[in-house]
């Protein structure tokens, strides 16, 4: 630049080195592993891949994973929205604490979360004994998997909504209620359109995590093939059986879901950042 006003990063060698390092790291840490997944999955040919993916246990794992996500996402959608609404629209004692508590699942290692649930709801756990005497088994079956997945993914929606709803304030909702609208009508016509894209973003993230969760699920699932095996657990099982191609075939499915998530996420981010058209007209009086 010939303005004579140079910042540190303006020097070409600094810029080139930094960009070079970033590219190199991204290449070896991110791109190559993903490419390897697909390369390995298809290494024994298309038909083997198809065979691996349509394997009875793999199909069941896919089904269970999608089933868990299908339960988790709506649950956390409702929970996250209700939580964000309550902490941004009302003032009550313990509100700040609640906002902090939302982050517990982020702070706690998923394996610990799984163990906690096992200790609490397992056969020898505090509540598990009582549940077992009533013939309810939560751990080592799908309800347990859903429970830990809900736990691990519950901050995503609320975390997306809280800053946005704080920034938007409650004036529009107050305007709605003064105009005589019912609570449901206000939510549907005013709140929901305002938070729509953040909500979708939160759902996409929740879904991605619900599908890919390994640690917590592995503790409570019991790894019964064809019964309580989710796709990430299935990948590990296959790998331990020395069925590397099969493991990579299943892994490639997860990778595909992840990439789809990224595309949706990028689109939603683009929509969110787009302001509602603003071309103020000259004052007409």
């Amino acid at each position, binding site marked *: 630049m010939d303005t004579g006003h140079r910042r540190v990063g303006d020097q070409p060698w600094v810029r080139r080195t930094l960009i070079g390092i970033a590219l190199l790291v991204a290449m070896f840490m991110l791109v190559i592993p993903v490419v390897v997944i697909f390369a390995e999955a298809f290494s024994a040919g298309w038909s083997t891949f198809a065979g691996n993916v349509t394997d009875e246990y793999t199909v069941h794992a896919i089904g269970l994973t999608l089933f868990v996500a299908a339960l988790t996402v709506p649950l956390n959608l409702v929970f996250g929205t209700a939580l964000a609404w309550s902490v941004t629209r009302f003032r009550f004692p313990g509100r700040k604490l609640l906002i902090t508590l939302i982050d517990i699942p982020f702070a706690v290692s998923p394996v610990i979360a799984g163990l906690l649930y096992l200790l609490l709801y397992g056969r020898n756990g505090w509540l598990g004994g009582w549940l077992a005497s009533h013939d309810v088994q939560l751990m080592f079956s799908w309800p347990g998997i859903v429970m830990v997945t809900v736990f691990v993914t519950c901050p995503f929606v609320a975390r997306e909504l809280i800053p946005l709803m704080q920034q938007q304030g409650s004036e529009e909702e107050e*305007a*709605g209620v*003064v105009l*005589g609208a*019912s609570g449901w009508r206000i939510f549907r*016509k005013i709140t929901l359109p305002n938070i729509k894209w953040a909500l979708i973003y939160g759902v996409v993230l929740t879904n991605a995590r619900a599908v890919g969760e390994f640690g917590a699920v592995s503790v409570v699932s019991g790894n019964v093939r064809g019964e309580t095996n989710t796709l990430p657990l299935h990948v590990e099982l296959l790998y331990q059986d020395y069925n590397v191609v099969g493991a990579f075939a299943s892994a490639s499915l997860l990778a595909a879901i992840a990439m789809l998530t990224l595309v949706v996420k990028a689109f939603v981010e683009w929509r969110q950042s787009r302001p509602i058209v603003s071309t103020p007209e000259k*004052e*007409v009086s």
Partner: protein
Amino acid sequence: MSITIDQISKTFGRFHALRDVALDIPEGKLTALLGPSGSGKTTLLRIIAGLESSDSGRILFGGEDVSNLHVRDRNIGFVFQHYALFRHLTVAENIAFGLESLPRKQRPSKAEIRQRVEKLLEMIQLPQLADRYPAQLSGGQKQRVALARALATQPRILLLDEPFGALDAKVRKDLRRWLRALHDEFHFTSIFVTHDQEEALELSDQVVVMSQGQVEQVNTPTELYAKPESRFVFDFLGHVNVLSGAVKNQKLVQGDAWVSLPGNRSEQEAQLYLRPHEVHLARAPSVHARLPLRIDAVSLIGSEVRIELVPEGWHSEEIWEIGMSHNEFAQQNPSRGELWFAVPDVGHLFSGDNSQPKTVDWLYVEAANACNM
């Protein structure tokens, strides 16, 4: 519909937002709640609307207790400070929102709603903007849309929170006039909150001055300006020039400055309050006052010339302001840096702890003296 505010109190934690506020808002009048920020005026407005609940006291609309009536059922129009237009709805949809929210039995047909919206758009002179979104409007346009939206359900009470606060001076004046005209045409009972005394005095039929959660004074703008009942109201309504000193020998004295107070035999601390128009400037002190001041600035903009002065040989917390007509200014030609003397014609004396002022009229005293001679 008249509004009665009966002993309303409200605290936020330890902060007393309102203390036993009692007030009557007459039907069909435009009332201003005027006060500095933190005086409780917005809280009071929100309690009247039902957006906030009071700790104690009652709100009555036309004699009927509405304290426990939900804001939804109070049928009031409310204009928010930042308009709070629904950003995802068009101007027409915003205005129609209240009508569409009516219970099915009272809700007009779709065609009727469309007609009503068109009428309202004409009333706010923006029919061409029906399909715009709020982000595409200027501040003044948003304000009018907010008004139309509030009036769509034909409320009998209209509440406005700092309605012109966020607008520039020119638009503000236009809108003020327009709101006044609108009010005179439809005669709903309106209350608006403002911290701008000029706005309150110009626009309203009745002004309620509030301070620290309490009502200081209620009166018509003219009476309020002419007869403030406390130092606070005096200070708050426009500029005031103050001479504070001690009364001795029927004179209020401080440093080189004094003003005669004929008939005042008490000897105590006192403050003399003078409005800019109650004082004139002279080259020499008069028989009843000696107030030396140096000219600091001259402002020619407006219908009157405003002169700012600094005390010379005595002290005042704020600068003095004296107004004179352009004609007078051309004759006397006071300019910056010159020493002049302020001559009060009428003043208001607060003595000791007395919160009520005593009016002193030197013109009258002089006339009486002249007659006696």
